């Protein structure tokens, strides 16, 4: 297992390196300059570029950047003078992370609940409503959901505050709009796998043991039904933890997504690079984590990892 983890981390490092390299040269290929502004003359821009070393050849710039990176320095933002990239990420990341984590948990809990409810409900209307609901939830993009929630609960009903992120009440609307789609997907997956697992023969044996329905459902079936969901939740958490631009913009939340988009608009090279590295690490880390979690839940997966280690 340790060997497997080490191997995954090494592969992750290599992909991160490739990501950094490609992003670096892509940013340099963008037309225009970070210091181009309607109000300053060309000579000023040139002087600024000279100072920041942007007049050097891209390869030399790359070498300098990588040297700094290895020393653990992400550099200074070009646009927000004197502010380091680390501090920008340090300010924005917790905001996005708390939002994303809340959304993932909401999706997992609500999705599981709705999925199981749909699978076990004896009332036909409940099943139809839930299946329609999941279809609808999976069909609405999160920015539409965000606008609708904003309109209904924020503007018309005035139940929840609409901008910023100061009190727990501020979290409700953005988290809801972020978790709309994943909840629907999780509910659908749980419904399918749960119904399938319920037909398996080990459930019959569990009944023969004298276990009650809910004992079987929670102890035996949910554990197995959760494994495919986990594989979905991994990439999802990576996506949510790195920020959603649309939702953050609508609710005016100072998160990573917003920073990322504005950095690209401003051609703030160092910030783009910093955010790319940060998000790349999060995605790789979260995926590794969910794989390990899967292995922990399912001994068969654990063995397939061990098998990989032997090769062939």
């Amino acid at each position, binding site marked *: 297992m340790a060997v497997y983890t080490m191997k995954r981390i090494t592969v992750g490092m290599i992909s991160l390196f490739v990501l950094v390299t490609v992003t670096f040269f892509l940013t340099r290929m963008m037309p225009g300059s970070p210091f181009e502004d309607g109000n300053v003359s060309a000579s000023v821009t040139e002087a600024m570029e000279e100072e920041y070393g942007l007049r050097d050849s891209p390869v030399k710039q790359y070498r300098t950047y990588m040297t700094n990176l290895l020393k653990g320095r992400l550099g200074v933002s070009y646009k927000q003078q004197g502010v380091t990239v680390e501090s920008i990420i340090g300010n924005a990341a917790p905001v996005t992370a708390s939002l994303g984590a809340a959304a993932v948990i909401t999706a997992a809990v609500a999705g599981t609940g709705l999925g199981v409810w749909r699978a076990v409900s004896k009332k036909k209307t409940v099943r139809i409503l839930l299946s329609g609901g999941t279809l609808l939830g999976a069909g609405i993009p999160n920015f539409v959901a965000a606008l609708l929630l904003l309109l209904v609960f924020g503007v018309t009903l005035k139940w929840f505050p609409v901008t910023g992120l100061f009190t727990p009440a501020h979290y409700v609307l953005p988290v809801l709009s972020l978790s709309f789609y994943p909840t629907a997907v999780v509910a659908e997956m749980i419904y399918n796998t749960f119904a399938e697992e319920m037909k398996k*023969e080990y459930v*019959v044996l569990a009944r*023969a043991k*004298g276990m009650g329905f809910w004992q079987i459902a929670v102890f035996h079936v949910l*554990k197995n039904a959760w494994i495919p969901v986990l594989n979905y939740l991994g990439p999802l958490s990576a996506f949510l933890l790195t920020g959603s631009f649309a939702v953050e913009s609508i609710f005016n939340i100072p998160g990573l997504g917003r920073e990322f988009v504005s950095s690209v608009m401003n051609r703030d090279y160092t910030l783009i690079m910093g955010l790319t590295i940060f998000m790349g690490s999060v995605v790789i880390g979260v995926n590794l984590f969910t794989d390990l979690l899967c292995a922990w839940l399912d*001994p068969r997966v654990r063995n397939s990892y061990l*098998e990989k280690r032997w090769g062939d």
Partner: protein
Amino acid sequence: MSLLEVGNLNVQFHKDGKKIRAVKDLSFHVGEGEIVGVIGESGCGKSTAMRALMGLLGKEADASCGRFCFLGEEGTFSPNKVQKKMAMIFQDPFSYLNPTVKIGKQIEQAVRIHSGGNKKERKQRVCDLLEMAGIRMPKQRMSQYPHELSGGMRQRVVTAIALACNPKLIIADEPTTALDVIVQGQMILLLKRIAKETKAAVLLVSHDFGVIASMCERVYVMKEGTFIEQGTAEEIFYAPQKTYTKDLLKNARRTRIKADATETEEVLLKLSNVTKLYSNRFTQGKAAQKEGVQNISFAIREGETFGLIGESGCGKSTLAEIVTGQKRPDAGEMYYRSFRTDLLKKSARKKYLEKIQMVFQDTCESLNPKMTAGKALMEALRADKRQILTAEERKERAVQILKDVGLTEEDMWKYPKEFSGGQRQRVCIARALIRNPELLVCDEAVSALDVSIQTQILRLLKEIQRRTRIACLFISHDLEVVGKISQNVGVMYLGSLVECGNTQEICTDPWHPYTKQLLECKPDPDPKKARRKKYAPLRERQEKPNKGCPYLGQCGYRMECCEKAAPPRYQFGSRKVACFLYSKEHRKGNTDMPMTSQI
């Protein structure tokens, strides 16, 4: 006094608006401490009836019972509520255990429900149960997952779960069907012992007359949802009344399908010292253990059937994959006619691969459910690059081949699910034959079928062989089946061919200790003989020793030299044996006499 009395049990299924009566007016009784057998072919409603008794029917079934008296209490029948004091042992121990929960935990749940107690008491009880079910070192086993255990061990875990409720009646539904012959013998022994120790009655459901004969005092014969005959084991086995029972018994006894002598024919396929090894997946930390096949040599002549037997996991299927060219051997030589084939590149191998076709065990899985039988056959023809046929010709050939395997022209447009198991296997055989192969590899081709269907398919294969002179490599775990169809047989144990030679000779006079054990373990469909039978003691499957004879751990004839090196093959006439008993040094008596069995 009867422990269980059932009168007029009916079970119906509702499917697509139709009602299907699975169990019709079943009446029977089980005495206290009695072992009662229920025998019938698959699909006759045995399992459904047993589940109804136990209270395990699903929602879609509809059950009623005229009289139900269990433990002296009247009218406690409930198709959806589990009976206490009744326990069930299921057929396939793998799918009946939750793959992601440790076995100790799975047993503990049953203990918690039936006897409660604190954590320590429960754990002790789980240990006791595992020991009662014949598992040694229960403490270590408790923290293992189902997939880490062998089939026999898993079945014992399921048995331990059944014992957790101190049952008065144990319903054993095909408890030995998924197991190897030797393990099956041990399981019969275990069930007998449990019945004696716990004084519980056993209701044994099986399709295997041998298993029923070796355990039961009274037998019910079931056909299409009803009991058509009942009586003591002696009555049923020695003086059956109904023709159905007689037919079943006849199929169960060895009826040899006549084999032609083919000694003069040309050798079609020859393997010499073929080896293919894989790393074992469950041995992390330890020295890398290898499994696969080692030093396999045999030859198949034209028109001959070569049987290959061995328990599951002994490398039979690996060998089939090597023969059909899906895997390349690590070492050794393989000849097809006079071409050496193991060194060929993939494209060159194709030419001879077309001459080898395969029939698989699982007929459902090996046919595309979305393709009609005719389409599957014609597709095989279309893949033939050498001779391009028109659609008309293809259809003609397909119809012809279907008729050859005993199906009709109408069957061309049926989907696999519309066929019965036996018919589906016929379609599979037709698909293999349509390309005019020279060698047919049947990997457990009849293992999933009922005995009567098995006989039909074996007859069909023989008939085809007589007509086309096709050679056949017939792989099975069932010595009975191989004995019926093959002229020569190879016995495999943990990747090695331990004995090889004429089928008749080997079946009547085994030389290798393993072959002898295999033959002895097969329960006879004869109660008097079967009850006397002594099975090998309960022994856990041992890991393959790193050096020495593969059969070392199980062998009753082991000698010092067996531990040091693997025995070479000793050849006497057509028979080859890999055992030191047949070496010059260990031979008993006069060395000038022809060799006879040393065991």
